[in-house]
């Protein structure tokens, strides 16, 4: 650790912007971005699975409300959704007196709610497409085995739907990472927030934003390779036979 510190000090000796302190801001921002993105993706995923099943249902009173939800959240900018939840929470009278205020006081939670609802809407549509693409023969075979609807979903439809959804879901994860940059607008110190702080403090847009762009680029490639690996593992049976 000390060696690392010494190495850093030497490396950064010649510039005024990237001191150990500003690097610390970026590291803090990275932690915030990672928390926000991972939590919203996780909760969004858990919401999206039942919603996607409901969206594929043939009952109109199940199908249409979910369609309305995904249509609204996919059709409006995330920034608007964030503002509605953030300002909606702050300016609603009386909320400051309830226990909810303890949670909603920090901008992190309104942002988390907005991101979660947004990614859940996109993921629902991705899964719906994957469920719809289930080969008819598989469903007929499951029925012929006398499987109940729930069992068929659990054993036949969902496992193969998850696999088919994998490439599109990888795109959604990258999209969410990039979309999380707007968290900085509601004063959250995420990666972009750290870059904005450094820019404002040193008036050095190139240093501040190019550095953060490089971090985002690395994260994007990391996610890309992770999903490529997963696809290779989980979609091996779909590869053309040679």
């Amino acid at each position, binding site marked *: 650790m000390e060696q690392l510190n010494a190495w850093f000090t030497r490396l950064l000796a010649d510039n005024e912007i990237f001191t150990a302190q500003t690097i610390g801001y970026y590291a803090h921002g990275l932690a915030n971005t990672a928390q926000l993105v991972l939590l919203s993706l996780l909760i969004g995923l858990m919401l999206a699975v039942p919603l996607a099943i409901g969206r594929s249902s043939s009952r109109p009173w199940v199908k249409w409300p979910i369609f309305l939800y995904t249509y609204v959240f996919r059709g409006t*900018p995330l*920034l*608007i959704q964030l503002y509605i939840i953030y300002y*909606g929470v702050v300016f609603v009278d009386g909320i400051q007196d309830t226990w909810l205020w303890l949670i909603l006081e920090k901008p992190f939670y309104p942002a988390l709610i907005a991101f979660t609802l947004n990614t859940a809407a996109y993921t629902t549509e991705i899964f719906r497409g994957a469920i719809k693409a289930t080969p008819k023969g598989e469903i007929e075979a499951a029925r012929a085995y006398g499987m109940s609807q729930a069992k068929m979903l659990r054993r036949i439809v969902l496992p193969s739907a998850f696999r088919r959804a994998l490439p599109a879901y990888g795109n959604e994860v990258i999209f969410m990472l990039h*979309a999380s940059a707007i968290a900085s607008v509601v004063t959250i110190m995420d990666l972009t927030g750290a870059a904005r702080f450094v820019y404002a403090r040193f008036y050095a847009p190139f240093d501040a934003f190019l550095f953060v762009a490089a971090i*985002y*680029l690395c994260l*994007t490639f990391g996610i890309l390779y992770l999903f490529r690996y997963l696809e290779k593992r989980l979609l091996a049976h779909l590869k053309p036979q040679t």
Partner: protein
Amino acid sequence: MIDLQGYGPRLLQGAWVTIELGLLSLLLSIILGLLTATAKMSRSWIAHRLGTLYTTLIRGVPDLVLMMLLFFGGQIGVNMITDWLYYQFDIDIFININEFVAGVVTIGLIFGAYMGETFRGAFLAVDSGQIEAARAYGMSESLMFRRVRFPQMMRHALPGLSNNWMVLLKTTALVSVIGLTDMVRVAEEATKATHEPFTFLIPVAVIYLLIASVSEWGFARLQKRYNVGFGES
């Protein structure tokens, strides 16, 4: 009817800014996309590499970060160039970057990368027999592009193009963060002034949905037009 507390006209002006910004950057991104697709498909090694570098870099970095880089860095960069011109050649010019132009250029530049990928796939999907036939007729490259490649490419590109447009439309909301007065900015200011978030933000969301619905209808019509001669698909 909702009471917009006098913000109605400004909200409409903001909506107009959003639409203008969206359409102009769409135009720029289509031009850049066509150039990128051509570069990526060209036999020249440098053009291919440059095209790939452009699409990879742009698509790996958040829109907002790129926007801030170009917005805040743009003026400093331009000043550096004009300063250099002044010291070297005694040319005294001052260029002030207009916010609207910067917004169009940034969004156009970002979506040019996405359009490039869309167009490349679409160009490759055009039947090579068509191009051979055009060559056999003795068409020049530009005539062939205008009469054969472009119209047939559009049939394959339209679904991706409409998708990109929907994302672009939503990305225009980000310009409010860096100081352009689009409808999101007006709604945010009104919210802060009146402490009534839903009165302003929900109408803005509805306008976005409306624009999206209208463009969906428009793209469906275009698709029909470019599908002429291919039956229903």
